[in-house]
């Protein structure tokens, strides 16, 4: 039998990349921006973080570089959606395709080398795991208790009203997009710098898309994102344990579990939002819509 505490610690590690990416996307979506480029920002962060950690020998620098790279790669998306009023769905897809391509291109020289490791934090967990857990209350506090968070939510809920009150809708949204990019970058780097310790093409394997689903699952709240990330982490760990235990199910079918679980969860939560009279969807009112101030 496996020790449940050890299993929970594994779950914390497995859920960290998604937790970061989903918290970042949560902030962007609360500002009214639907960014489907999470996967592209994660893979960019995974590469930039790995390269920086490898060349400097310092994983901390790797995570800083990943945050910066994630925010930078999100810039074209910000320009497209905020200044050129492009469709957010299409622009986000473009960001994902571009990021995956760019990372594959510049990642070639990084193949086959190992990342430097750092001393683990409390309970043998990576420091970034703890940072992720700390981000949950911080972001909850920011969104629900701070003035800046109130403005951000106002922009996401009704951009015309926020504009009429004199808030700079574009600036708030660009900041939210950059924050989302930085968080996704750290999440991606956690995979390459903290767990796999190697760079391989396409190594985020859909984690960015799962993060997007978890934001829907969370009903746009930070604790909800944590619950979603843990659920996902739990399925991943369970699946890996089953593989290791040599269950007579093909590996390829077991490794579908996280994706199928995401679909099941997405369906369950969507159905709840659709049919329940009390628990309606709390999606931000202006989510995914272009903002164009005529005056």
């Amino acid at each position: 039998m496996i020790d449940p505490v050890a299993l929970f610690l594994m779950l914390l590690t497995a859920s960290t990349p998604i937790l970061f990416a989903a918290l970042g996307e949560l902030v962007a979506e609360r500002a009214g921006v639907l960014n489907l480029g999470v996967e592209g920002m994660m893979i960019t962060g995974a590469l930039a973080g790995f390269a920086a950690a490898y060349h400097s020998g310092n994983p901390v620098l790797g995570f800083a570089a990943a945050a910066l790279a994630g925010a930078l790669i999100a810039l074209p998306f910000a320009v497209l959606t905020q200044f050129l009023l492009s469709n957010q769905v299409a622009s986000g897809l473009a960001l994902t395709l571009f990021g995956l391509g760019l990372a594959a291109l510049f990642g070639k020289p990084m193949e086959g080398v190992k990342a430097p490791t750092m001393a683990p934090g409390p309970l043998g967990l990576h420091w970034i795991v703890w940072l992720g857990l700390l981000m949950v209350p911080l972001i909850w506090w920011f969104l629900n208790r701070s003035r800046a968070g109130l403005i951000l939510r106002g922009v996401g809920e009704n951009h015309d009203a926020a504009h009429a009150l004199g808030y700079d809708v574009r600036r708030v949204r660009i900041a939210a997009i950059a924050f989302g990019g930085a968080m996704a970058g750290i999440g991606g780097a956690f995979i390459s710098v903290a767990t796999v310790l190697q760079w391989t093409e396409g190594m985020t394997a859909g984690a960015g898309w799962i993060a997007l689903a978890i934001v829907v699952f969370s009903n746009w709240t930070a604790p909800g994102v944590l619950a979603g990330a843990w659920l996902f982490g739990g399925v991943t760990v369970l699946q890996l344990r089953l593989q290791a235990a040599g269950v007579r199910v093909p590996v390829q079918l077991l490794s579908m579990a996280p994706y199928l679980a995401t679909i099941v969860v997405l369906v369950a939560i969507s159905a709840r939002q659709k049919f329940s009279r009390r628990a309606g969807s709390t999606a931000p009112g202006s989510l995914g819509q272009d903002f164009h101030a005529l005056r």
Partner: protein
Amino acid sequence: MIRLVPRTDTPALLQGSTPVLAVLATMLAGGLLFAIMGYDPVTAIRTIFWDPLFGPAASYSRPQLLVKAAPLILIASGLAVGFRAGIWNIGAEGQYIIGAICGAAVALAAYPAPEMWIFPAMVIAGAAGGWAWGMIPALLRNWFGASEILVSLMLVYVAQRIAAWMAFGPMKNPEGFGMPGSRNLQQYPAAANPELIVGTGAHWGVVAAVLAVLATWFLMSRHIRGFHIRAAGTAPRAARFAGVKPETLVAFCLGLSGALAGMAGLFEVAGPAGQITDKIGVGYGFTAIIVAFLGRLHPLGILLAGLLLALTYIGGELAQLTLNLPGATVQVFQGMLLFFLLGFDLLTRYRITRRIAA
């Protein structure tokens, strides 16, 4: 100060010229990228966009143009119909893989029967497989309101794993000396999708792609369903009052694009790819999204856009051989192209004027 004024209608010239502008901008930005990477930008751009058609080895690479363009056009014509209605099937890659598996299953079950019905049955199975895979996100959206974007995308990863399982398990070639991968359908005449006219690269998928372009053109500009789709995309509320059921459109658009993507997968596995392997999905389903946008969601535009993106694939391979340029360059190019395209789209939707001092 500049300001943007929404256009009420777009001049046809502008409609057609923004994709051209986007391609030119991509070439410029790509040249810059090559220069940064230490390659001669002019040689690199010429190798990708000119040499496959007119260079010294063009007689080998020209037929490849149709081989690569056929799946892109086939998939993109279906996707564009949904995109017009605001229905985002971004999981065509998964529908392509499932189509390939279902089509190949018919062939592998019939092996080594020589009958004429086998290939047509494979085409139907491929389309049905893609349709069924596309109907999963459609039904989940219609019944429970789940986002078709996320569900269709998740199903790509599921499909990839089914393909890997098939290649290593149920579909493994019993005479393959333990190597993963199915029997090679190119060596099974009743199931093969051969080159129809020698030296052109044209196989049945090319025929299907042309038919798909014609059929979607008819659908979108001559059929009431196409009118409903356009109405739902531009004025959803008005369409609803006119009696257009969103549920019907979701099922229709995801089913149609799934069936076309599935067919594309079948033609690929029976032709150029030859067998089911864990790498049967090569990204056509994602590139087709770019093709649909570059073609401005118009069937004829998609035809041209599919040829252009096929050119970047072939040019990319050529540049890999002759200039040692990394293979991922093409992916970066395609991503940049979509960025520029979406940016230049501003010109078709808004007029740019000087702000007049009040």
